[in-house]
């Protein structure tokens, strides 16, 4: 008869168990049980984590406490990051928030780690706060930030590639408002894509020279009655453009377009399902992950925030919703806050 010994299970078995914990707080507690559990649970090479929600209304926060809730759990953690006081935070991207107050830096709210960034030369007082754009799942991609010059009415892009010690600054003059540009921005396979909704084309920018390589025309409809939000994201190696149409506090529709490669002459094609991918949308940006990595979450779905009208018209209430592309159903999910949040993928390295 063998004696059951949880403390001395082989490392690879303990590792397998720890990978099934998709909530990072369970994972940290797991590693606090005993030494062998601790050493078998390596955070760095761990499976992707379930995104959390940063309760900041998708805007900017200047305070020391970061309120976070694990997705779909109805819990809220308040994380105290003492040196975050007086920071101007935006993002997130991956697990980092961007502090756009000089000196600019990246902050991981889960660990309090702060990574300094080189100063952005064009950053003056006249500029709007900087916003993070780009792929938040791959840390080797360049860091892309966006801001707006009120004087010249230019959109200003800062691109910082890994190993560079200076930002590449790109000015864009296009006829769209800043809010429209924000979401539809993406770094994808070596190029920057920016979609100009009112010019009805997508700019493809070379991030080393800052020059526009070519433009892609679009044919999707414009409707001024709708509140339209645009997102661009990489999903399963493809570039997707998602359009959320809202009319009078009601979701009118979601439209998903996929970029066809050079062999089809670069164009946006409407698609109707995304297989086992899940799209996560917030105020300005979004990203995509495979549902098979997350036990118990449904694929072919869009997870997003939606403001519902309440009795007080000044205070609509945010709901976390799931739109199922398979049956076109929208379902409200548990979410403990009244404000819309931003998705953040927790990591502790």
């Amino acid at each position, binding site marked *: 008869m063998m004696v059951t010994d949880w403390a001395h299970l*082989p490392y690879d*078995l303990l590792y397998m168990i720890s990978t*099934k914990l998709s909530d990072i707080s*369970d994972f940290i507690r*797991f590693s*606090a049980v005993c*030494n062998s559990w601790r050493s078998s649970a390596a955070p760095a090479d761990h499976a992707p984590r379930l995104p959390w929600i940063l309760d900041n209304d998708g805007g900017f926060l200047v305070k020391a406490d970061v309120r976070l809730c694990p997705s779909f759990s109805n819990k809220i*953690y308040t994380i105290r990051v003492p040196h975050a006081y007086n920071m101007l935070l935006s993002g997130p991207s991956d697990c980092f928030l961007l502090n756009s107050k000089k000196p600019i830096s990246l902050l991981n709210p889960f660990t309090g780690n702060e990574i300094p960034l080189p100063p952005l030369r064009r950053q003056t007082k006249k500029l709007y706060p900087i916003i993070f754009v780009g792929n938040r799942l791959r840390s080797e991609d360049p860091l892309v930030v966006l801001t707006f010059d009120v004087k010249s009415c230019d959109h200003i892009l800062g691109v910082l590639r890994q190993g560079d010690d200076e930002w590449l600054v790109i000015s864009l003059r296009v006829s769209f408002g800043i809010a429209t540009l924000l979401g539809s921005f993406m770094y994808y396979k070596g190029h920057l894509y920016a979609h100009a909704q009112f010019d009805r084309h997508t700019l493809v920018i070379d991030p080393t020279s800052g020059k526009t390589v070519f433009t892609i025309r679009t044919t999707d409809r414009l409707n001024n009655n709708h509140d339209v939000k645009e997102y661009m994201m990489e999903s399963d190696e493809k570039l997707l453009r998602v359009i959320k149409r809202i009319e009078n506090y009601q979701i009118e529709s979601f439209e998903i377009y996929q970029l066809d490669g050079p062999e089809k002459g670069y164009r946006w094609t409407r698609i109707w399902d995304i297989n086992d991918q899940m799209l996560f949308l917030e105020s300005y940006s979004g990203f995509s992950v495979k549902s098979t990595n997350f036990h118990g979450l449904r694929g072919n779905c869009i997870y997003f925030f939606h403001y519902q009208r309440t009795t007080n018209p000044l205070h609509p209430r945010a709901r976390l919703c799931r739109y199922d592309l398979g049956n076109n159903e929208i379902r409200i999910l548990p979410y403990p806050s009244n404000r819309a949040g931003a998705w953040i993928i927790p990591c502790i390295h």
Partner: protein
Amino acid sequence: MITLISSDKRKFHVLEEVANQSLTIRDVIEDRRGRRRADRIILVTNINSKIPEKVIVYWLRHFLMPEEIAHASMSHKKAEKLKKWEAKFFDTDIDTLNDLILAADSLDIPSLFDGACEKVSDILKNRSAEEVGEISKIENEFTHEEEEEEIPSENAWVWRNEFA
């Protein structure tokens, strides 16, 4: 038909097709193919004695419902039924789960291994380190200082009270 012999010398006769779900056993059978009858006896003495029974029950249920069918063409109702059955199967004490994980690992039965790991992680979810230690009977081996200082300060927010 092959024969498995457990550590307490009990014999289990199993159809080859059923036992094939263990990749280890499948390889052994493949190796010995065409040899004498006596070679169709496989010792599974490295696993806890009450486990072969459980494993065979699991095999039989999955043999009736092969994985490929389970994914491709199984009706929603049948899938639900299998899910319910698995939940019941894994709803056992934590010691048995430990033995199941070890058995599934040494016999190389991926679906059983995955299922058992998932069940264990479900047990660990939303529990503090002390509770987990109690359930799994693991002595807290961190020194007092380590426990007081280093670990909670690493990710303090996990240990602070949370509110719904």
